[in-house]
């Protein structure tokens, strides 16, 4: 019998089988099901319709609900949708619900939390899931959001599903999955100061195309990946979907174990690894020392170029945020470039979660707790002229027209987010360049796309930011 990959082993175990092979369909048990304010109401509607008004979810401890998309808007339907989630949580007695408690039953734009440590609200679901201890190696996570694949950074099978699949899993704890073949991307060397995981994933997507991993697993391997923080690994797996991937995974190492043990209250989970004779449908290797800061030009994540080649592109706006580029490490990367300087173009910063926001106040530029009158990351960004919004999805997906940072006209924006489809961040007239937080920050200072090598030489320390 041939060896198996991590994904094959996880699917086999959850399907009650000794082994599975790519292409096989298996019914598997789901460990965690996540939904949010955009797909939750539809999912709940299907659940009630199909299982009955009195039905209970299969396991109340395995359902996680994270409102994050349309929070800071005056749109009444968005508020109503949050109420639908609240009612469902009460009806089902769910434990893991992260309520935007400042959204009251009244019209108009809600007043955001004042202190990010004093609200139940979290922000972007893919950031909230690991922070709140809902991701664990070897498990299966389904979420009604395509970037659910982010959690694969922790060595689990995580994938996005629609409302019908989610409603089915809510009632039964099960779903059917076709076992995907695995593509292996190996990175040699250590990550240099001017690159982040965002450059790596843009290079990968540029290489294989937006459909290059359709129906497949993307496995990020090699010592280059071990050299990344968990936060940065999440940037890789997050964007697996941008190549069409079903899921993305990284190996479990000490960093993973430390993170998960610190955060999760579930004692037992099983780490899976690729067998040495596991089969891959595709392999590609990179050397980190020869890679360059990358951008994806409008309007597709695979429209790759180097930041250097795009240096003539004039910008109207810079955006740092989302589940891809709104983590604490992304904030530290951006702040180290912006410190002591002034941005030349409007620069919007949106923390991925309230924990990220709290850390932006608690930590210094090296990711260590602030001492004496050392500046916080938040202060550095505000001093540089950035506009800071409350945590959430914000303009990453455009959203209602009053959304913070939304591109309402023909703006040209450079962004740490993950998608630059036509109209993704608002108007179909706008254009979005995707890049790393280093490149976005450097470009904010010049008003043109700027290679961050002009601004960083020494490695940027992020300490234990994001982990503890």
């Amino acid at each position: 019998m041939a060896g198996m990959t991590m994904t094959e082993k996880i699917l086999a175990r959850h399907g009650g089988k000794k082994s599975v092979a790519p292409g096989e369909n298996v019914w598997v048990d789901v460990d965690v099901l996540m939904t949010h304010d955009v797909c939750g109401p539809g999912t709940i509607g299907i659940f009630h319709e199909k299982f009955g008004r009195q039905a209970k979810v299969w396991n109340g401890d395995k359902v996680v609900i994270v409102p994050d998309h349309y929070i800071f808007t005056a749109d009444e339907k968005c508020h109503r949708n949050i109420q639908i989630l609240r009612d469902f949580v009460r009806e089902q007695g769910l434990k893991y619900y992260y309520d935007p408690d400042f959204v009251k039953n009244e019209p108009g734009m809600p007043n955001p939390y004042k202190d990010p440590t004093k609200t139940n609200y979290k922000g972007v679901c893919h950031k909230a899931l690991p922070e709140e201890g809902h991701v664990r190696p070897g498990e299966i996570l389904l979420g009604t959001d395509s970037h659910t694949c982010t959690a694969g950074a922790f060595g689990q099978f995580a994938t996005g599903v629609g409302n019908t699949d989610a409603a089915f899993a809510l009632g039964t704890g099960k779903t059917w999955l076709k076992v995907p073949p695995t593509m292996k991307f190996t990175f040699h060397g250590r990550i240099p100061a001017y690159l982040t995981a965002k450059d790596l994933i843009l290079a990968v997507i540029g290489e294989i195309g937006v459909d290059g991993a359709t129906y497949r697993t993307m496995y990020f391997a090699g010592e280059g990946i071990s050299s990344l923080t968990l936060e940065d690994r999440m940037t890789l797996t997050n964007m697996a979907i941008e190549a069409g991937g079903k899921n993305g995974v990284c190996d479990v190492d000490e960093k993973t174990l430390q993170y998960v043990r610190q955060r999760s209250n579930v004692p037992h989970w099983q780490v899976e690894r690729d067998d040495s004779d596991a089969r891959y449908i595709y392999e590609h290797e990179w050397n980190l020392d020869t890679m360059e800061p990358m951008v994806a030009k409008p309007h597709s994540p695979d429209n790759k170029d180097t930041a250097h080649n795009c240096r003539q592109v004039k910008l109207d706006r810079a955006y740092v945020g989302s589940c891809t580029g709104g983590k604490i490490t992304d904030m530290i990367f951006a702040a180290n470039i912006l410190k002591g300087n002034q941005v030349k173009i409007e620069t919007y910063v949106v923390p991925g979660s309230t924990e990220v926001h709290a850390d932006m106040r608690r930590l210094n530029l090296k990711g260590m707790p602030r001492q004496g009158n050392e500046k916080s990351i938040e202060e550095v960004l505000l001093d540089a002229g950035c506009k800071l919004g409350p945590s959430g999805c914000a303009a990453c997906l455009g959203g209602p027209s009053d959304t913070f940072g939304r591109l309402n006209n023909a703006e040209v924006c450079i962004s740490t987010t993950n998608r630059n489809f036509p109209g993704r961040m608002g108007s179909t007239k706008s254009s979005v360049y995707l890049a790393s937080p280093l490149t976005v920050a450097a470009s904010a200072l010049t008003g043109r796309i700027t290679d961050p090598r002009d601004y960083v030489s020494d490695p940027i320390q992020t300490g234990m930011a994001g982990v503890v």
Partner: protein
Amino acid sequence: MESVISGKAYVLGDNIDTDQIIPAQYLAFNPAIAEERKYFGMYAMSSVPEGQRGLPAGNIPFVELNQFKSQFQIVIGGKNFGCGSSREHAPLALAEAGITCVIAEFYARIFFRNSVNGGYLVPLESTTRLVEQIRTGDELEVHLLDQYLLNKTTGKRHELRPLGDVLPIIEAGGVFNYAKETGMLK
């Protein structure tokens, strides 16, 4: 499942993502409420850029202003149809607008899965690229069981790929019905 689907074609290019099919600003409508659900039809395909709306002309609205239904019933796409966000609102919006099947070279997996499991429409794959061979407005006849497409306007016949594993779910009308029929659900 009907074995023959006929209707007018609406032709699109490659990488039609779900933000183009149903833009994020309309996701606040709750599909579980009938009064709101029909708006997904009204706004279906509303973010497809000018020049690509209904090829080859590229300026044909999918749904006329203030209408809930499209005058087209079959969507023809290129590669990677339905990529991007996992929003099930995408196949739902097409179905609300009156689309019964999409024929593309291949699909992004979540769109395909949502179409099948939710029983919204039949996602078919062509064996050759059709985007340049079929014009928006052509009268089509899709023969599901015999796996071919007849363009009645041009008289040309195009082959389709078999639906394979998902055929029983499509025939059942979605994953819930399928699970009931196979005894998984009571």
